[in-house]
Structures are given as C-alpha cells and as structure tokens.
C-alpha cells in the first residue's frame, strides 16, 4: 500500500517538475523526488543505495543545480505565440512524444521477461547472491557485503569511478576557473 503511495508521489513530483516555470522550484521538487526514491530503496532493504540517493540525489545535486542556476536565469524561456504556432515546433513536439512512448514501450517489454520481484528461483538469487553471502566474510574479512563488493571484488570499478569524479573536478577547474587579473 505505502509502496504504491510513494510511487504515485514520485510520478506527481516528476510531472510538477516538468511543468514548473520557476526553475528553482523545479530543482527543489527534484530533491523531493530523490528523497522519496531513497525511501523506496529503504523499503526494498537496499540501504546503501538509499543512503547514496539521499546524500547525492537529494543533497548535493540540488545544491549544484542551484549553483548553476545562479549563473543562468531563474525562469524558463517563454515562447511567444507566433513561435508556438510554427509547424516545425508542433512537429518536433509530436515526434518527441512518439519517441518517448516508443522508448517506454520497449522498456516495459524488456521487463516482461524479468523474474518476479523476490522470486527465490531467479538466477541472481540462485547463483550470485548466495556466493557473496557465504564467502564475503571469509574472502575479505568484513561484514558489509556491499562495501566488500565495491572495495574488494570490484576494486577496479571503484578506482574507475573515483577517476571519473576526479576528471569531473579537473574539467570544472579548467573550464570555469577565472584567471587572476594580471
């Protein structure tokens, strides 16, 4: 019951964020969206993911979006009536609607072959999960399987992620830092 309520709130947040003309409000609504998403992850017992979603999605992303807004304009650009009636604008709107519907249909079609949620016969529950549950403590000496997978079993991936973040920081410094006046 509460899961359906949370999912409905998420859909409502997404729709409001789309139609909001004030981009600051849209950013805040996206923060709410992330926070409810974190609640859903907690309901699914994925606490690590929920923690990341709450701190990154609801916390830092909102702040960085607001920081980006301080460099641009707060309100969305309004089309004048003449621009809106142009046939090319209408055509691109219809085309994007078709594209979104097709993509959504393909994604839904992809989920049809997936096993039921929580199905004990699913391949992941048969083969991958038991191995991590049984072997993690013996292999790595720590108890949190998620951390063990991130830091030890998939250590290269995490090194790559850290490098990606480092590259993002470097790129921001190179692009946006003002040089000192000589």
């Amino acid at each position, binding site marked *: 019951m509460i899961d359906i309520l949370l999912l409905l709130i998420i859909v409502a947040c997404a729709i409001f964020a789309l139609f909001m003309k004030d981009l600051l409000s849209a950013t805040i609504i996206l923060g709410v969206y992330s926070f409810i998403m974190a609640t859903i992850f907690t309901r699914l017992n994925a606490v690590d993911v929920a923690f*990341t979603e709450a701190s990154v999605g609801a916390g830092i992303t909102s702040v960085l979006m607001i920081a980006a807004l301080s460099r641009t304009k707060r309100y969305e650009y309004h089309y004048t009536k003449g621009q809106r009636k142009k046939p090319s604008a209408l055509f691109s709107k219809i085309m994007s609607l078709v594209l979104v519907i097709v993509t959504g249909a393909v994604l839904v079609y992809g989920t049809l072959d997936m096993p039921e949620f929580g199905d004990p016969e699913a391949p992941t529950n048969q083969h991958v999960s038991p191995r991590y549950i049984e072997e993690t403590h013996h292999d790595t000496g720590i108890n949190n399987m998620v951390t063990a997978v991130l830091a030890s079993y998939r250590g290269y991936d995490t090194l790559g992620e*850290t490098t990606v973040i480092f590259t993002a920081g470097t790129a921001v410094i190179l692009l946006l830092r003002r040089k000192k006046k000589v």
Partner: protein
Amino acid sequence: MKEHIIVRIVAKFFTPFIQLFAFYVIAHGDLGPGGGFQGGVILGASIILYVIAFGMDEGRKRISQKVSDILVSTGALVYAGIGILCILAGGAYLEYAELPLGSHHLASHLGMYGIEIGVGITVAFVMITIFFETAKKERTDS
C-alpha cells in the same frame, strides 16, 4: 546570506556535527551502510553549507584554492597508491590481503579502509570545487 544571523549561527553550530557524521560514515562502511562516497559527499556538503552561510571569501579563507586542488588529486592517488603497495608486497594490483599488516583478514580490512578514505577525500573536494567554481561570485567582492 551574510546578514541573516539565524542562518549563520545554525550553520556554524551544525558544521562540526555534520563533519563528524561524515567521518563516521567513511569509517563504518564495513559495518553498516555507507562508505567513502557517501561520507565524502556529506563532508563536502558541510563545507558547502558553511560557504552558503558565510560567503565565498570566508570559505576560501578556511579552505584555500591551493589546498582543495591538491586534495582533489590526493584521494585518487591514495587509492592508486594502495594498489601499487599491494604489488610491492607481492600481490596483484589492489589485492589487499597481501599487505604486510598481520593476518590476511586484517590486511584486507585495512586496505579497504585506505581506499574508502581516498574515495572520500576526492569526492568531498571535487564537490567543493564544483560548487566554488559554479556558483556566481557575489558582486560585493569586486
């Protein structure tokens, strides 16, 4: 926001607690949810809160541009360096169990601590850097 005394007091009061929580999250990644990434984000957020309340110049006094630039690369170097240390200790790259720190379990535990700390440093200071460079400078400083 420099003139809002409530914002300033609350930010000043909460910053150390948020930072303590960030270190807790980094250090307890092996026991509960959390780890270097989340802890680093929280650490960055605490400093961003301070900067929002007190302004860019005050924030740059606390963490100078040079220090934060150095720390951005330090984290990634700590991570990669632990991998190199594992090779020097006779294992494969990032095979923490080979580090000469007592038992294999203890060595891999400490190796994971090390890389979590590296991830945390990089994430925290990249977030701070992005905020400092993206947010518009206040007009009063010119």
